[in-house]
């Protein structure tokens, strides 16, 4: 799942990218509000981690702009001052969640997953589909109780497809979920991962819609 990280401190920003990467996210870091605006314009993100204080302004300003323009992307605010008033201000500005610095990597990842789950209108942390159980927190999947051995990328593609069963995702959309800006996208890599997934799950589970993309077959 692709995240936009807006944080100007290089060490923390790097830590967020790498740490959230270890937790199964794809994180794109930017350091300023201007870069964040550009990124939001150009790409699609599942959620955003936003620092309150940035060199060119307040994160809450960007948040208010997004909400005013109807962008409902889940946003988690990072802030140095974790007082009640600060939290209220942040949440009122349109944040979905709030973490005071310093914070725990696992807590951040859990909050991000919860935020995105709420965004998709789901209550359960686990995804169920045609006998496949997916646990986004543990990055594990089972089929009929038997653990599936999936690579990180295969997991991400399966996760994206069964989040909205029946919805067609283009190759480009899947690539966006898989890779951040710093990673080179190899050509036909999505096809390769889908091929592997089909080998593990069965051909009929992932359907190819010719000229459009892929979708997860059948109902949940």
């Amino acid at each position, binding site marked *: 799942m692709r995240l936009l990280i807006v944080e100007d401190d290089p060490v*923390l920003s790097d830590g967020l990218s790498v740490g959230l990467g270890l937790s199964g996210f794809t994180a794109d870091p930017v350091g300023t509000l201007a870069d964040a605006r550009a990124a939001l314009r150009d790409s699609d993100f599942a959620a955003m981690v936003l620092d309150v*204080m940035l060199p060119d302004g307040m994160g809450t300003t960007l948040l208010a702009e997004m909400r005013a323009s109807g962008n409902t992307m889940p946003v988690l605010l990072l802030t140095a001052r974790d007082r009640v008033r600060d939290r209220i201000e942040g949440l009122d500005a349109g944040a979905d969640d709030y973490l005071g610095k310093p*914070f725990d*990597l696992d807590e951040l990842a859990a909050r991000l997953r919860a935020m995105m789950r709420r965004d998709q209108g789901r209550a359960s942390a686990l995804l169920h589909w045609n006998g496949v159980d997916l646990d986004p927190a543990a990055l594990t999947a089972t089929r009929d109780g038997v653990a599936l051995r999936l690579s990180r990328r295969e997991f991400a593609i399966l996760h994206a497809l069964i989040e909205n069963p029946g919805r067609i995702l283009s190759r480009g959309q899947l690539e966006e979920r898989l890779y951040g800006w710093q990673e080179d996208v190899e050509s036909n890599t999505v096809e390769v991962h889908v091929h592997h997934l089909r080998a593990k799950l069965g051909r009929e589970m992932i359907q190819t819609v010719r000229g459009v993309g892929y979708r997860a077959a059948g109902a949940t």
Partner: protein
Amino acid sequence: MSIRLRLFLILTLATSAIWLSAALWINGSTRAQVERVLDARLAEAANMVSSLISDQRIAVAGGPPATISMPADPDYSRQLSCQIWSLRGDLVGASSGAPGAQLAVEEGFSTTMIDGVPWRVYAVHNDALGVRVMVGDRMQVRDRLVSGVVAGLLWPLAVIFPALAVLIWISVGRGLAPLAQLEAALRARNPDDLQPLPDTRDPREIRPVRRALNSLFGRLDQVRRTERDFTAFAAHELKTPLAGLRMQAQIAQRATDPATRDRALAAIATSVDRSDRMVRQLLDLAAIDHEATPAENLDPATLLAEIAQGADMQAVGARVHLLTRAEDAPVLHAPRVLIQSALRNLVENAIQHSPCGGTVTVTASTRSGGLRFTVTDQGQGIAPEDHARVTERFWRGTRTSAQGSGLGLSITAAAVTRMGGSLHFGQARKGQSIWIDLPSGPSAP
């Protein structure tokens, strides 16, 4: 004394004074008027008596003095007295109630004391009959007349005066109402409320007060906002590296490949160094803001050598040459901690913004009336539009990466201000030049 009482006293005293002088004036003019009218009447009466004697209507013969009936005038009949004296000095006639003594010696108007009572008398000679006719009245009568007029004026005033005083008291209160409103508005304020007072339709006299108060509120608000911003920024600047440390520590713990772990550990080391510098700068700032340190005599050359030594590690690490030059600069009289903080932060800043292989030059030179320290680097320089902002605490230039704390130049600026000097930004031929002008101050022998 309250303004109300003061105004009340001023107004009532002024009113009383005006009334008093008016009364004195009326008294004087009434007296003059009364004198003129009554004198004319005396003369008229004397001439009338004289002509009556000439017409033989009043018999003036020897023997006992004749009784003269005076012209009938209801008000003054009893008050006028008439005497007719022969030129030899015998009283030949008198009105009833006239005193026995001779009323006047001279002809015309005169004032005589008879039995201790002053009289106003008009005397006329009747040469044909050889008599003198004298008509007089008591001065008391005149005084009574005048004081009657004045009293008639003063009594109503005396009655009106308390009413007037009450009116003045109430009016002054009403007149001071805007002041009372201002006071009430101030009293009703929350101590934290530093909003300007609402721009109501004040009287002209209140407006400057309100403006002065609003400007004071504005300055206080600015100070408080700066302090609040400072805490907010300090919290952010101190906690962000902590968050980075924790993040990187967790990565190092769970990273499976050595490369990721080493990278995280290196990031931790960097973060610790930066936090250390930040804490040191915050302590510097606190020392500059609040500590009183005595001034001492400092040799600029030694000072530069110390600064160069302190910045050596950083310079070597950044591959920047650091040159110092003290051109027969005079001895500086300043607190050591201030000048050291100012120079150290300038130099660190210059090294940080220097390109690899660049040169940072620090010079001390004489300037009329003082000393100038100049730090020149070969970096990108500070954008001219940022000159005003670079000395703000925690402000980082738009051209820089997020390396610095945003405190360096604000420490320099604060220290320079404490030393009574000034900080200037200039364009070097290739890079940025910043200099500090300091007064040499009183140097001990």
